[in-house]
């Protein structure tokens, strides 16, 4: 059985050798035929030995690996028992928005107030009515970065780690302190919280190379619209006063202002360009409109001419006799009952265009139908029971005007 496994691949390439040449293919010139013969004799000996001595260990290895794999496959179900870790993960899959809200709820549950300022976390950061709620953005880390780099704002990130001895230390000491609130309002920073035990939290912590929790970091946009970590406070606080953090922000503020100016400048440039574009666009449309109208009117004329040539002359006898009331005059005409009401529409249109009378264009023989679908700019109604006359219905079926009736032309 082993041989056939190995021989299978080798068989595949065997037929190629004894492959009967296609008709009309170039006859193999005889020189490369001898040459392979010599080769086969030469290489028959060496690789055969090589094949033989390599053959056995490789097969053994192959078997071993296979047995190993199948054994692991057998034990796979045992892995299931660890699933209760993954169970915990599924409910994290919901979107980053309400992960943010979960963190806010957990943090506000701490309910310990800062001594000096008297704020509690909830009063400040409650999603609906917190003082700083407008500074907060519900979303993931990437949204924060995108928003801040575009608006040129500082982003203050705080990592919450539930399993520390005192997880709410930063809430008590910094987040609800006066200086912090002032700083946020003064620099109009975006504030964002994140829980480390969530996948996104862990990934962000790793990318910011955080080595201790809890963590408070300030990110500022750079010229190449990336965000740079300006200041960081990590691990337990001893006698830390927030002014250092603020000093770093202040020192970077000039750059921030400059970046904002640059952003506004870019924004302005963009707006300018947009306006130019839009103006250019309008002018473009206008003259497109114009030549479209011109073109359309010619088309119309051609169509009407065509339509006139196709117009069915007034039947002598039994047709349907119709009186058409225009704004200030009445026309009485007979129409062949078997035609559609569209014939009446065409007639009225031609009449209004005054083409009916002139017969000059009679002689252009076959006017092919311009591929233009004419829109009648008026509607035909029958007054007594007021119904709209559909061009597509056949005159015969329209009870209100067959065998005779009156039609009112109404312009939209």
């Amino acid at each position: 059985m082993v041989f056939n496994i190995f021989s299978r691949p080798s068989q595949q390439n065997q037929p190629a050798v004894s492959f009967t040449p296609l008709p009309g293919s170039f006859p193999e010139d005889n020189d490369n035929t001898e040459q392979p013969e010599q080769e086969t004799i030469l290489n028959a000996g060496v690789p055969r030995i090589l094949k033989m001595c390599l053959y056995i260990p490789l097969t053994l290895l192959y078997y071993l690996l296979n047995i190993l794999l199948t054994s692991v496959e057998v034990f796979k179900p045992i892995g299931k028992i660890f699933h209760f870790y993954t169970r915990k993960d599924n409910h994290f899959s919901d979107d980053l928005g309400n992960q943010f809200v979960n963190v806010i709820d957990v943090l506000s549950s701490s309910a310990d107030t800062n001594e000096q300022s008297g704020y509690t976390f909830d009063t400040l950061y409650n999603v609906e009515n917190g003082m700083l709620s407008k500074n907060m953005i519900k979303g993931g880390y990437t949204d924060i970065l995108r928003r801040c780099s575009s608006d040129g704002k500082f982003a203050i990130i705080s990592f919450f780690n539930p399993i520390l001895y005192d997880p709410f230390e930063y809430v008590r000491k910094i987040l609800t302190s006066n200086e912090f609130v002032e700083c946020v309002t003064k620099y109009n920073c975006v504030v964002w919280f994140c829980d480390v035990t969530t996948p996104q939290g862990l990934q962000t912590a790793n990318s910011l190379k955080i080595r201790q929790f809890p963590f408070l970091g300030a990110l500022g946009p750079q010229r190449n619209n990336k965000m740079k970590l300006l200041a960081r406070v990590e691990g337990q606080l001893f006698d830390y006063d927030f002014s250092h953090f603020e000093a770093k922000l202040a020192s970077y503020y000039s750059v921030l202002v400059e970046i904002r100016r640059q952003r506004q400048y870019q924004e302005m440039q963009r707006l300018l360009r947009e306006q130019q574009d839009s103006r250019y666009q309008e002018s473009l449309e206008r003259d497109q409109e114009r030549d479209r109208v011109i073109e359309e009117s010619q088309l119309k004329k051609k169509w009407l001419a065509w339509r006139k040539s196709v117009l069915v002359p007034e039947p002598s006898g039994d047709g349907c006799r119709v009186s058409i009331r225009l704004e200030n005059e009445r026309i009485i005409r007979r129409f062949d009952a078997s035609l559609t009401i569209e014939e009446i529409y065409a007639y009225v249109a031609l009449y209004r265009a005054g083409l009916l009378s002139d017969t000059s264009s009679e002689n252009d023989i076959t006017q092919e139908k311009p591929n233009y679908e004419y829109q009648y700019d008026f509607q035909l109604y029958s007054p007594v029971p007021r119904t709209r006359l559909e061009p597509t219905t056949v005159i015969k079926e329209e009870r209100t005007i067959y065998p005779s009736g009156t039609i009112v032309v109404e312009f939209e």
Partner: protein
Amino acid sequence: MPSTNSVGVEIPTGLVQFPITKILMICCVGVALTASLFNMKYLFLLQYDPFIVEYGQYWRYFTFQLGSLNESDVAIMTLIWYQFRSLERLFGSRKYLNIVILSWAYTTVVIFLISNLLNKLLPGIWWDQYTNGPLPVILCLTHFYKQYTPRLYEFNIIINQPFLLHSNTIVWKLTDQFFIHGLLFLAMVNQGATGLVIGLISWICAILMDNGLLPGTDSFQLAPFKDSWNRSSSTLNRPSAVMTNDMTSEDLNEEEAEEPQDEPQRTLGVQFLDTFRR
């Protein structure tokens, strides 16, 4: 994305600000080395038959986790301790130390009770062999690791054409923590069947600890570690005139590594000799 360009998915390398991990790694290697130097490796040996039954050396229960006997164990354990620095980051150094000591205490007591119960009450079964080395403590911590570090990404390994199985492909679903799982599995298998049994026991121990049945994860604060020992440089009140983004030494290493060599690139051999000459 922030300017620290490397989208570091794994946690920061190096042992800066990870004192407990550093101490544990050094002890893991150092204890094994000094034991073999002093030819006292037998201190960490625990076998029920000769020692506990005849000589009653119960102190062995306390020492069998402190050092590991064979060298491959030392290697694996050191690597695992290094991988567990993310736990230290999560718990904070002091709590991490307390958790390690607590789990060592609990696993020792549990193994002590189970082994004595088994051997005394059921004379038939004779649980003689125990693992040596910090395997129980590590597996205890694995539970905390798996509980509190989420999986960042998953990937599948598809192996096809196994001739024994009728289905033509095997699919392995691995997460970004596969390296640690591999190491842990290796550590357990390295000790044979008892490794698996004791591993399971200590894992269950951890689960009990985590959800409070075995008290102490939060309240146990005996370990002598003061937080100010591992105070991160960012909370120091340095004069504000200091530059904007303080560089921890770890970044320095990286900076140093990428720093462009302005003098002509010294060949490796010259560099090697220079470490001694200059």
